């Protein structure tokens, strides 16, 4: 059996003065190259979980008390020399892009982390071109970071962590400020990262996108893991914090006896299923 990219067991965190644990005996494993979507309502512990996995908790100042075991490709997190060493394997993109843009120009922002790591300039240029292409930010490279829109900032932040080539990327709501096209762009980039062997954990409220792009989902509530499994297993189970609207509709239709097929998780899947039911491709029915 191959080593898990991330293995977590008994992870418990309590913030000082809080009446309950932020994380309560959390345990799961993620395989290399897997995309794990993390779902849950506000306060479920999703961001705290990502901070633990990246070593921010307990290594950063003002960290809460933590116990439990986390290992990255078989190496326990406490064995890493410091946060900087952990980030060579694990890249974290936090929620607020504004505090993660620390340079004045986008190009400088993307290369800064690589310069800090002493990566040779030709390799910096190669990664810069790749990131610009993957995240569609080529036209932004010479813009000022403070003048970007919220969505552009978010893409630049994700790209700047991608440039560091971590083996695991932790993304905390990377599409919260993006429009549908931007969201799809980031999700496609996540798919490409996974194809290249990068393990991706993504906290996201856009369930329909997660259902399409994640290999597995992990549902959390009040610091606990409620369910882990394929998107279909989790979203159709009772622990799902929310469901894609299209799945809700299909389930209602099934209750009414109007839908026999497997309930779809996304709109494109619903269109395909409808075409199959009516034996007519969607494009053929277009009255135009």
């Amino acid at each position, binding site marked *: 059996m191959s080593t898990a990219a991330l293995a977590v067991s008994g992870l418990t965190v309590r913030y000082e003065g809080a009446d309950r644990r932020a994380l309560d005996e959390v345990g799961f494993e993620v395989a290399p190259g897997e995309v794990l979507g993390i779902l849950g309502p506000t306060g479920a512990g999703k961001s705290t979980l990502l901070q633990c996995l990246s070593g921010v908790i307990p290594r950063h100042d*003002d960290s809460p008390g933590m116990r439990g075991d986390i290992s990255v490709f078989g190496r326990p997190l406490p064995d890493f020399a410091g946060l900087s060493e952990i*980030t060579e394997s694990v890249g974290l993109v*936090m929620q607020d892009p504004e505090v993660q843009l620390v340079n*004045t120009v986008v190009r400088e922002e993307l290369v800064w982390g690589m310069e800090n790591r002493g990566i040779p300039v030709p390799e910096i240029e190669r990664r810069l071109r790749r990131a610009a292409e993957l995240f569609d930010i080529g036209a932004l490279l010479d813009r000022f970071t403070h003048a970007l829109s919220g969505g552009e900032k978010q893409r630049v932040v994700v790209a700047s962590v991608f440039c560091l080539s971590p083996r695991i990327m932790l993304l905390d709501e990377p599409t919260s400020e993006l429009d549908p096209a931007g969201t799809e762009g980031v999700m496609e980039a996540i798919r490409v990262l996974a194809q290249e062997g990068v393990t991706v954990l993504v906290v996201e409220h856009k369930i329909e996108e997660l259902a399409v792009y994640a290999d597995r989902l992990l549902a959390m509530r009040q610091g606990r893991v409620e369910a882990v499994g394929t998107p279909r297993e989790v979203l159709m189970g009772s622990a799902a914090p929310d469901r894609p609207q299209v799945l809700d509709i299909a389930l209602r239709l099934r209750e009414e006896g109007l839908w026999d097929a497997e309930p779809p998780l996304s709109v494109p899947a619903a269109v395909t299923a409808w075409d199959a039911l009516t034996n007519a491709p969607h494009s053929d029915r277009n009255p135009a």
Partner: protein
Amino acid sequence: MSGTMLYQPGKTFLHRADARAKIATILVVLVVALTTTRIDVLVALTAVVVVGLALLARITPASYAKALLLIVPLVLLLTLLQAVVQGGPAIATVAGVSLSRSGVLLGLGIGMRLFAMGICFYGFSVTTSPSDIALALHKVGVPYKFAYLTSFAFRFLPLLQDEARTLLTAMAVRGSAESSSRHPLRRGRAIVRMLFPMLAGSMKRSSEIALSMELRGYSLPGPRTFYRSTAFRPGDAALVAGVLLLAAGLLAMQWQLPAPFTEGA
């Protein structure tokens, strides 16, 4: 750019000049400004800086007109203060208070000095990219971690401006007349009211920024690479030489020419 002191990209001679040459120019201007209080030398120095910025960076007085609105009253206040506290023959008597001639000259001299240095810094900051400043400081021996902080400060200036604007707008939409008032005192009260939330926000933000920097390897001990490079070209050497010559001329003017006012400052 949202701030008047922030870098504005361009292709003028000063934009293209090496930051080290520009830092050297500033140092020379500072030396001349701080070694004389003679009003004629300071007027000449200010004229040189104003003309130099206009020719080499297309920065005309219109660009820093807003700053002049702040500097001119300051100069007048300084002059008035010196005129009252300094002794010597009076230039005029207002409401029974004698205004000293030497005090007026001293106040004008100090004001002129501030003005020359101020616009010199302004010219430097609008023509020099923050990362070029960091790189130049590093090249002259400042450890990168410290040199980087200069460029970092420039990054967060617009952020603070935006935060201040948001807070003032938030106060205005909740009915505060002070935040949108043109009256300086009322506006000042709004700014004081805004300071605490702005400070609290900055403290929280600074912790997150520090974490973000650490996550990207800022504190790594190993050698770092530099994607961009700078070169000290003949044009930069010419700039420094030209400024040194002008400085020498101004100092010669101070030592060789008689002071235009017998009780010059």
